C-alpha cells in the first residue's frame, strides 16, 4: 500500500525522511504566524473561549479596547471578567448553547458600564470553532465585539432632530392657517358686501389678495405634506376606495377652477374599474396635483381629460392636457423637489409633483409622464386594484 500522495504533486523524497516533516512543520508555523498577524492587526476585539467559557486567548484589539491585560483575562471565566459586566442572563443563555447545540449568534446588543472605559454599546457575534480546526482539537468559541456606541448616539440625535423639525412644521403651519382663514373669509365678505364700482378695480384687488392667500395656503400645506412623507413614521391608512366616486368628487372640486380658464374638463372611467387599494386622503391630493399642473400648462379654452382603466390587477389613472407641453430636457426633472416650468408664473414652491410621486411610490405604484412641446402632456400613475368594496357605511 503506497503512502498517501503529498499535496500538489510534490515528489516523494521519503528516503530523506526528516525533510518532508520539517517542511510540513515549517508550513504549519508559517500559517500560524500568518493567522496570528491577521488577528493582531484587526481592530475588532476578539476573544476565544473554551468549552467551560473560560478565556483561552484574546487579541491585541481586545486588550486595547477594554484596557485590560492578559493576566487578568486569560484563564478567567467570561462572567468573572471586569465588574462581571458580561454576567447577563440572556447572554449566558446564548453562550451556553454555542457548543452543545452548535448555535451561533450575531448582533447581540449589550449596553453596560465597563471599568476604565465607561459606558459602551457593543454588538456581539459568536460562533463555534470546531475541534478538528483548533490546535488542541478542543472545540472553542470565537466571540467578536463591535463598538456600536458612536453609531447609536448619531442615530438617536438624528431621530431627535427629525422629530423636532416635524413638530416645528406642524405647529407653525397650524398657526398660519387661522390668519389665512381670516383673510380669505374677509375677502369673501368684501366681495359680497361691496357695491360694484364701475371699473371693477375693487373686485380685481380683492381677487388678487385672495389668490395670493390661497397660494400661501398651498405652500403651507405642501410644506406639511413633505415633512410627513419624509418622516420615518409616514403612515398611510389604506382601504378599498371607490374609483368612480373619487373621480366624480375630484371633478366637482376641479370643474370650477378649470372653468375659470374656459378649460373643458372631461373624464371617463372604464367599466371594469371598481376600486383601488389606497389611502384616500393622500390619493385625493395626487389627482388634484396633476390636474393643477395640467391647468397651469393649458391655455384658455383647452381640454383636460381624466381617464381611468385597468390591466389585470393594476389601475391606471391618466391626466391628459392640450397645453404647451414640457421640453424634452426637462422631462427627467419634473418630479424633483422645487421643479417648476421655467416660463410659468411662480405659483408655488414646486413641491406638488414631488409629493405626488412620493405618495404613489409609497403605495407601490408607478408615476410617469410623456409630453411633447406644443402638443400637451400626459401624466399617469398606477395603483393596485382592490377586490370587492366593503359595505358602505351610512354616516
Amino acid at each position: 500500500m503506497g503512502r498517501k500522495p503529498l499535496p500538489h504533486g510534490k515528489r516523494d523524497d521519503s528516503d530523506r525522511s526528516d525533510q518532508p516533516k520539517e517542511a510540513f512543520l515549517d508550513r504549519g508555523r508559517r500559517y500560524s504566524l500568518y493567522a496570528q498577524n491577521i488577528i493582531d492587526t484587526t481592530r475588532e476585539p476578539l476573544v476565544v473561549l473554551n468549552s467551560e467559557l473560560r478565556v483561552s486567548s484574546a487579541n491585541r484589539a481586545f486588550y486595547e479596547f477594554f484596557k485590560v491585560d492578559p493576566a487578568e483575562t486569560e484563564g478567567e471565566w467570561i462572567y468573572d471578567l471586569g465588574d462581571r459586566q458580561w454576567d447577563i442572563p440572556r447572554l449566558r443563555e446564548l453562550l451556553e448553547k454555542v457548543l452543545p447545540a452548535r448555535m451561533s449568534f450575531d448582533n447581540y446588543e449589550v449596553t453596560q458600564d465597563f471599568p476604565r472605559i465607561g459606558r459602551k454599546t457593543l454588538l456581539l457575534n459568536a460562533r463555534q470553532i470546531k475541534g478538528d480546526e483548533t490546535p488542541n482539537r478542543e472545540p472553542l468559541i470565537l466571540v467578536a465585539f463591535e463598538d456600536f456606541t458612536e453609531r447609536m448616539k448619531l442615530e438617536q440625535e438624528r431621530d431627535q432632530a427629525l422629530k423636532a423639525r416635524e413638530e416645528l412644521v406642524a405647529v407653525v403651519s397650524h398657526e398660519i392657517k387661522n390668519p389665512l382663514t381670516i383673510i380669505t373669509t374677509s375677502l369673501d365678505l368684501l366681495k359680497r358686501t361691496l357695491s360694484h364700482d364701475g371699473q371693477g378695480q375693487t373686485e380685481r384687488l380683492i381677487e388678487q389678495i385672495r389668490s395670493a392667500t390661497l397660494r400661501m395656503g398651498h405652500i403651507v400645506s405642501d410644506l406639511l405634506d413633505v415633512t410627513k412623507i419624509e418622516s420615518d413614521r409616514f403612515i398611510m391608512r389604506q382601504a378599498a376606495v371607490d374609483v368612480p366616486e373619487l373621480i366624480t368628487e375630484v371633478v366637482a372640486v376641479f370643474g370650477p377652477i378649470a372653468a375659470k380658464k374656459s378649460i373643458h374638463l372631461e373624464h371617463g372611467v372604464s367599466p371594469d374599474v371598481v376600486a383601488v387599494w389606497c389611502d384616500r386622503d393622500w390619493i385625493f391630493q395626487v389627482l388634484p396635483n396633476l390636474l393643477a399642473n395640467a391647468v397651469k400648462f393649458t391655455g384658455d379654452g383647452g381640454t383636460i381629460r381624466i381617464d381611468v382603466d385597468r390591466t389585470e390587477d393594476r389601475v391606471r389613472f391618466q391626466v391628459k392636457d392640450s397645453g404647451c407641453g414640457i421640453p424634452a430636457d426637462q422631462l427627467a426633472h419634473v418630479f424633483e423637489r422645487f421643479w417648476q416650468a421655467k416660463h410659468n408664473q411662480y405659483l408655488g414652491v414646486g413641491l406638488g409633483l414631488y409629493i405626488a410621486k412620493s405618495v404613489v411610490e409609497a403605495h407601490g405604484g408607478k408615476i410617469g409622464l410623456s409630453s411633447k412641446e406644443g402638443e400637451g402632456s400626459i401624466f399617469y400613475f398606477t395603483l393596485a386594484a382592490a377586490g370587492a368594496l366593503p359595505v358602505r357605511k351610512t354616516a
Partner: protein
Amino acid sequence: MTTSGTTRTETVCKSILIVEDEPGIRENLQALLELEGYRIFTASNGEEGLRLLRRMPRPCLILLDLLMPVLNGMEFLEAKSHEDAIAAIPVCIVSGVAERPDMSKASAFIKKPIELDGLLRFVRSYCGVPEDRRSD
C-alpha cells in the same frame, strides 16, 4: 370633503351653531352664512358651545373648531354624545390640524383655510336653502 348624503332637508330648521375660538373666523363665518339666509349662533369654546346647544332652537348643523381653550373640539364631541337631546345633531369639523381627526362622532371635516363654495355646498346639503334665498 364627504357628506353623509341622507340629510337633504326641506324643514324649517336653518339655525347653525359655530364653535370657534378665533374671533375673526367666528365673526366672518357668521356674517357669510347670515348673508346666505341662515340664523347663526356662536360660541368661543366647547364649554360655551354645549351650554348654548342646550338652550337654543335645535340647529341643523354645528361647525366645530378643534383647538380651543376650556373645552376643545374632541372633548365637546365626547360630551355631546352623552346627552340624548343633542347627540344626533350633525357636526362638521373645521380645523387647521395636520392629521385627519377621529371622525367617529362627526360627519365631515373641512380644512382651514376654508374654501367657501365647498362650505356653502356642504351647509346647503344639511340645512337646505333658506326660504328667502330660494329664488336666487
